[in-house]
């Protein structure tokens, strides 16, 4: 029979503590008075200043507007990237067409190229199109995700062709096949992809930092970063902003973790 090992379990519990401990401290620090953030020893129990800090964030960065921007950007990006990925993944998985392999290789090779190479031309492009400081400037570059296309291709390849052909014989058009068969059958992978893209959009920092100029367009990471380092900075508020950035995503993950991890592993299991 299996023997359980206390030692192994404790080691993993230690790793768990190192990973999760900082989040606990963050959640507590976000409820302190500014002057208590840097107290010694650190405050490890709830502090009762949460509402006050929330109000402070509302006054300093316009928290509600910033959250709205973040959800809008991440949401639209997610919807767009999922559509693009499903369509292209379906084409790569189930159709023969000229240039297919070439394009697929090109697409994947961008995974290996540093994003930094593209930063400046995209910036100049956006500048000349007058899109700097707009939602579009942040959303558009995120719509084509090589990883998403790759993931969908892997997932859709494992669908039996008979399923699709049967529908076609019944007279269903291609769009109908996609909508009625392909998407419903692959809903879990699509959900995982959506979660990935949303996470990426919610957390993205460098490009929005460059593309967005005015405080009422900022997303949460950009607004949080600009709060830092001023003489007047209120650290309880900065930490609260960090907590607001981190905690909802963790909750979302908790709810959807099964799809999330299986999506992450899709490449491995579907090959």
């Amino acid at each position, binding site marked *: 029979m299996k023997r359980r090992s206390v030692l192994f379990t404790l080691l993993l519990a230690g790793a768990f503590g190192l990973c999760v401990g900082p989040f606990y401290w963050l959640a507590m620090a976000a409820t302190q008075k500014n002057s208590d953030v840097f107290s010694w020893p650190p405050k490890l129990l709830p502090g009762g200043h949460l509402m006050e800090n929330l109000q402070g964030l509302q006054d300093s960065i316009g928290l509600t507007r910033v959250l709205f921007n973040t959800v809008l950007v991440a949401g639209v990006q997610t919807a767009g990237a999922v559509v693009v990925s499903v369509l292209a993944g379906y084409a790569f998985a189930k159709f023969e067409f000229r240039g297919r392999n070439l394009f697929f290789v090109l697409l994947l090779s961008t995974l290996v190229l540093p994003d930094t190479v593209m930063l400046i031309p995209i910036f100049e492009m956006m500048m000349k199109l007058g899109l700097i400081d707009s939602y579009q400037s942040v959303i558009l570059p995120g719509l084509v995700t090589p990883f998403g296309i790759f993931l969908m291709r892997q997932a859709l390849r494992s669908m039996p062709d008979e399923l699709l052909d049967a529908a076609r014989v019944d007279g269903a058009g291609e769009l109908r096949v996609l909508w009625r068969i392909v998407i419903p059958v692959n809903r879990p992978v699509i959900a995982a992809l959506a979660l990935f893209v949303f996470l990426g959009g919610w*957390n993205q920092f460098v490009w929005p930092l460059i593309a967005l100029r005015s405080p009422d367009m900022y997303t949460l990471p950009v607004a949080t970063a600009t709060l830092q380092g001023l003489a007047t900075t209120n650290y309880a508020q900065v930490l609260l902003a960090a907590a607001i950035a981190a905690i909802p995503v963790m909750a979302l993950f908790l709810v959807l973790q099964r799809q999330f991890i299986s999506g992450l592993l899709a490449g491995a299991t579907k090959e």
Partner: protein
Amino acid sequence: MSLAPSEPAPATAAPAGRGTTDRPGRTRPDRRRLLTRTSVPYLLIMPAVLGFAIFKAYPIVASLWISLTTGNGAGRHFTGLDNYQRLLNDPLFWTALKNTALILVVQVPLMLGLALLVALGLDSTKVWLRPLWRLGVFVPSLTGLVAAGVMFSVILNRDAGLLNWVLSLFGIDRVNWLGSPFWARVGVVLVITWHYTGYNAVIYLAGLQGIPQELYEAAKVDGAGPVRRFVSLTLPQLRPILLLTVVLSTIGTLQLFDEPYVLTGGGPDNATLTVTMYLYNNGFKYFDFGYASALAYALALIVAVLGFLQVRLMGERK
């Protein structure tokens, strides 16, 4: 750093360019429909092609051109390889490259080694509550770099940070985490390791669970001990996944930006200045786009060469 939303790594390398085994659909031209079997795939990939052309292909080509110019807007003019020449003579570029290499050499093996250990633990049937631990170690990788950076800039505070407090419980003196060149590097390595170890561990876990149990049984029958089984069975079986994580971690570390940007600003005295940070400063603080693009291409070249070498070295023995 990430321009597009960060893309989690696929767990196996793409079988790119391989001929498909799928049966091509029957081509049955139907003139009544706009969407025929021939036109459909082109319509389907059209958005991807457009986006790729505008936001990937064009920028890659354009930045090569920009790297050969100097000046802004209407004043931009061609200068040949001047920017690359300047780069070779720029001590800060070499400092940044040295820092990046140092972090790479220390951090990637450390993180992947820890990830493998955690994965072995998570795979072991001897451990209680495995799903909980798996969840916990994965959670840091969900955090955006800004949130993580803000959090750690306070946790690593010398006088009042959580980490120094925890260390003081063990009788260890306060460490000047972000204030001394040496400890600032250690701090950056710590934060990156915290961030990505669990993510890699979960990928390894999938690899471990994909190794057929019969192989282990056979090895046991042959009298191989646990260490022997790990070295001669587990590691070879994991090689493709190990290779993938090594390559991806290398790319990630070479492009390191967010942690030093938020934690140290590249200091003290450039101890944590990375190539990407230096690129950012030149492009977006000094508006010297030509030079920044040259830095980007130099970096791309290094990434490509290193990636190629790793694939050759680790993939060869198969």
